[in-house]
């Protein structure tokens, strides 16, 4: 059997593997659902798919979040659409069964005639777990999932020192795009330390990859690297946006929280990189970014100040010439485009009879192997 090098190639191509992962991994772990600002007020709702479970969150009048499985107790219809604001009650569109914000069934149309013996008190929505950590909302399908710190507590000390709650979202920076590759290819690209100096030679040179410190803490990957000397020497001028960490804590923390939630915690921005499996060979990535809470004018000034540095330090992997396609990721100078390209090119090769992986980098690709082992452990019931 061909391996990648730990997981079999089928793990990246077969529908059966994909469905098993939805069950064994994504239905059994904490799932990122959004930022705390997404459900700011009582009655606000937010729905998210966590593996096989659609779960919605509602903020109660006591400002506490509740999470329920998004299934009407009548015929199972999904109650809540993606986002709702200020709702007083939750009504299923199909037959107007209505629940209060505690998930209790409070009204059934024509109850006396159609359901003379219905005990509404036994038909509350099924609860799930919800918590907020580092400004992010997470849900878990199991109402007794326990403390979220059992899941994130050990890795937390290895993350950035950012006060995430004090940062504000920069909505224009949000992105959503589809990659024609398996979700694990996207994760492996994110945690592949070896590729940073090569694929991104023109786009991520402001970090000193040779000094990166990284490793797994439980199922989560922690990664930190310092700024390169030139960039740091005049950081207050060179930073593209206002700084968000103290001068003695400069650097980038780029962890990958299992399963498939990357963070990009840099000196100027804090981002989520959410990897959503769509099919064996299709993955959606959604990013959202938080920045310093300050005026547009401060951002503008910083952009002007740093423009000369960036014009000299960002370039394509290959130089563009008059014959090159203007959309070629290899000349784009955009590290995201470079990564997408690499992921899709790798996925394309998986079905070739000549595909094989014989050698992987001892250190720089060790996270790739370890992540595959963690996935395998989940799939074979060892985790």
């Amino acid at each position, binding site marked *: 059997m061909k391996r990648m090098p730990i997981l079999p190639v089928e793990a990246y191509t077969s529908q059966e593997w994909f469905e098993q992962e939805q069950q064994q991994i994504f239905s059994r772990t904490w799932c990122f659902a959004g930022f705390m600002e997404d459900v700011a007020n009582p009655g606000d709702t937010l729905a998210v798919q966590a593996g096989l479970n659609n779960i919605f969150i509602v903020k109660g009048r006591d400002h506490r979040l509740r999470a329920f499985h998004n299934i009407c107790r009548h015929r199972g219809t999904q109650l809540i659409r993606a986002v709702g604001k200020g709702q007083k009650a939750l009504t299923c569109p199909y037959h107007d069964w209505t629940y209060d914000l505690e998930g209790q069934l409070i009204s059934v149309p024509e109850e006396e005639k159609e359901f003379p013996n219905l005990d509404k008190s036994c038909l509350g929505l099924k609860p799930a777990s919800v918590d907020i950590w580092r400004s992010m909302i997470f849900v878990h399908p199991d109402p007794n999932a326990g*403390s979220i*710190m059992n899941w994130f507590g050990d890795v937390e000390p290895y993350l950035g020192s950012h006060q995430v709650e004090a940062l504000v979202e920069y909505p224009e920076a949000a992105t959503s795009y589809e990659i024609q590759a398996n979700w694990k290819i996207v994760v492996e690209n994110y945690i592949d330390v070896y590729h940073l100096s090569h694929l991104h030679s023109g786009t991520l040179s402001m970090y000193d990859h040779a000094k990166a410190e990284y490793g797994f803490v439980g199922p989560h990957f922690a990664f930190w690297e310092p700024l390169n000397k030139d960039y740091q020497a005049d950081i207050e001028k060179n930073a593209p946006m206002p700084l968000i960490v103290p001068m003695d804590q400069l650097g980038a923390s780029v962890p990958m929280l299992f399963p498939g939630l990357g963070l990009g915690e840099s000196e100027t921005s804090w981002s989520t990189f959410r990897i959503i499996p769509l099919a064996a060979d299709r993955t959606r990535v959604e990013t959202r970014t938080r920045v310093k809470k300050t005026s547009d004018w401060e951002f503008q000034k910083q952009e002007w100040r740093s423009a000369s540095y960036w014009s000299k330090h960002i370039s394509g992997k290959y130089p563009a010439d008059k014959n090159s396609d203007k959309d070629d990721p290899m000349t784009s100078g955009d590290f995201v485009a470079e990564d997408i390209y690499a992921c899709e090119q790798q996925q394309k090769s998986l079905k070739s009879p000549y595909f094989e992986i014989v050698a992987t980098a001892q250190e720089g690709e060790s996270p790739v192997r370890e992540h595959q082992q963690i996935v395998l452990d989940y799939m074979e019931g060892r985790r």
Partner: protein
Amino acid sequence: MSPHFHTLTVSDIQKEMKGVTSVLFTVPNELKDSFNWRSGQHLTLRITLKGEEYRRSYSISSSPFSDDPLRITVKHVKGGTVSKYINEKLTIGDQLEIMPPLGQFCLDPASTLRRTHYLFGAGSGITPLFSMLQSALLAEPYSRLHLLYGNTNGDNIIFKQQLAQLQEHYRDRLSVSHVLSKPSIWSSQGYWRKGRLNAEMVGEFINEHPPYAQDAQYYICGPGQMNTLVKTALMGLDVPAKRIHSESYGGQLITDEPVRGMAATVQIKLGGTRHNVQIAEGQTVLAAARAAGLEPAFSCQAGVCGACRAQLIKGSVHMKARIALEDDRIANGEILSCQALATSPELVIEYRGDT
């Protein structure tokens, strides 16, 4: 449950402020296990003054997670014989008869739990809350706390300095909001709201401090009226009842309200048998049962240990003290028979054993 009294030595006495004294105890090694306490529990003292025996219960104000010794904090209440004695006469080296810690109004911290604790206190109701607050800060590092604390004025705030220091030290995890009913214009003590604690304030307090950790818990300790008010306000915001924990007057005890009770007939169900027993005016249900030769479980006779708990099925009683019962148990008809005076001519009660 059969708690016993043990002799403990007063190791130190600290004047918290005028009329409020903390008493620290040395616990001998052989009693260490019995005197392990949970934050929110109280100690029962047995003391004989001028030939008369008194039992009083006071909340423990120190945390089992700090290095502080066992400590109660006692406010001199008007007409309170024991609290007056403790505030004015008790000295270091004195020995007191004390029962091991009791009580179910507790905050038990755990290192990986991540909760938002809301504490509502008034006056000396702060004592158990102060222990809870320290425990959560020390032993539950992922959790946050918000204290709403009502007093008459800035001079009446027990643990004022300590709270300010904790707030400074744990800036990201603790907020303290003072409500003063009659703030002195000469005082520099800042406050969050002026007036008596009311439902609107409770709502505004939650709005200003929405839970970050979503496992929110609510603890209320003050006079009964305040507890009802806060609990009602919280439930009005859809806080589930199981998240609300309350205790009336944090161990202050003992409400010697002038209720004499009345003569009554009580049907007592004990061990599957029914007995009809007469109660004299001023006699407790437990005393009447024992006088009739029945032997229900009991122990402290101070309304503290809960051993004599019974279910009131018919009629009404007045309880002189009721620290062993959380408010919602009382609402469900549980009584402490050692404290229960009849206030209706016919009662039906049942001893159901330890539940």
